[in-house]
């Protein structure tokens, strides 16, 4: 069901002229998650900060409060990036959620003078991950995966990333790279085998 939704959304949102930036955003966020990559965070910041500010101005009608919202939202993105995983949705959805939550709490503070910070209970950010004795392992595994990915030969890396992180289909990727479908499949297989080897090596 998750898959179908994603597909449906993807087709709706593809406007012809615009490049879909979502996969890049996901990757930047993953880079912040795995090794606090400041350059990747700067890209996320450049992309989101003006949008958050615009949202804040609409919400609070005050420059200072709008900037507070940018500051707090982006701080949370920086500090909690490792809680993000692409299986739970796009980076932009994650950032939107954080912003919406913080903005709700701010409004309650302004309008009702309440600091009960209800938002994280109303819109749990991390709900799917809740029963999580394996979390540490997962986290470790993801880091190893990312390291493993970096170590692949560029052509294999490109294919693995496109299929697994950007969620392109084999066909789309073949067209994009201008190579036969079979080449995609063999690069993917080789890349995955190497990754698997690396992971097994780590886990022994």
């Amino acid at each position, binding site marked *: 069901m998750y898959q179908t939704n994603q597909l449906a959304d993807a087709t709706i949102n593809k406007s012809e002229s*615009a490049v879909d930036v979502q996969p890049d955003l996901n990757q930047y966020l993953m880079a912040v998650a795995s090794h606090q990559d400041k350059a990747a965070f700067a890209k996320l910041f450049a992309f989101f900060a003006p949008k958050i500010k615009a949202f804040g101005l609409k919400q609070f009608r005050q420059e200072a409060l709008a900037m507070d919202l940018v500051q707090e939202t982006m701080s949370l993105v920086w500090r909690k990036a490792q809680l993000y995983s692409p299986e739970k949705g796009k980076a932009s959805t994650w950032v939107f959620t954080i912003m919406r939550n913080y903005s709700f709490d701010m409004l309650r503070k302004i309008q009702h003078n309440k600091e009960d910070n209800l938002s994280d*209970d109303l819109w749990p950010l991390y709900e799917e991950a809740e029963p999580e004795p394996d979390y540490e392992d997962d986290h470790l595994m993801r880091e190893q995966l990312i390291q493993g990915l970096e170590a692949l030969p560029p052509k294999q890396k490109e294919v693995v990333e496109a299929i697994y992180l950007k969620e392109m289909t084999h066909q789309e990727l073949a067209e994009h790279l201008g190579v036969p479908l079979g080449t995609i499949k063999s690069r993917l297989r080789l890349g995955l085998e190497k990754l698997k080897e690396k992971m097994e090596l780590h886990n022994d």
Partner: protein
Amino acid sequence: MIKHHPESTMIHAFVAGELPASLSIAVSAHLELCPHCKAIADKATKAMADEFSGNEALVELAEPTPAQPVDEFATMLAAITEQPTDAPALKSAAVESSNQMALGEKTYTLPRALRQFSQTKWSGLGNIQRARLGLDEGDVHASLLQIDADSAIPHHTHKGYELTLLLDGCFEDESGRYEKGDFIILNGEHHHSPYTAEGCLCYTVSNAPLHFTSGVSKLLNPIGRFLY
């Protein structure tokens, strides 16, 4: 099975963060119990996030554009990345606080949206126990109500609106039977006299006292204010 759901406009307003806290709690708690509405909310969230993030190509952002108020953003960016990131362990601590609420002989598992109210003070009148949430939203009052088994609330109407989210047990009135998760909105046009055989726990939000309509039960209008 849940038969009564919030309208989709309400779910959208909830996702946008536009509902007051009292109603947001009700919708959030319903979504936790209702996969159908949860799917609607998830879809709305994605759509709003897409609208928020637009479709601009990221390529242009590789170099900061000097026309932007770069300075204030640049200072902010630098300050943010100076902060240490949270250790993964913090996450588990954050989700831990208890969802359990003991009341009389019963222990309820509260929806996540209500868990910070599990220690709220209760007061009783007859076969009804009430805990007011204290959200400070003016005329709008939000409460948890526990109604004993085999109890009825006399025939009444609502001057404003009354939202009831059934959290445990079941009750029935003239229009049917309600079960855990049902999200029921009544307004001044509705008259009803709910009855519960097994007892129930509800979350209610209303903006005016209940108004008792028939003969002797007018004496009960203090209960109406108590329930509000």
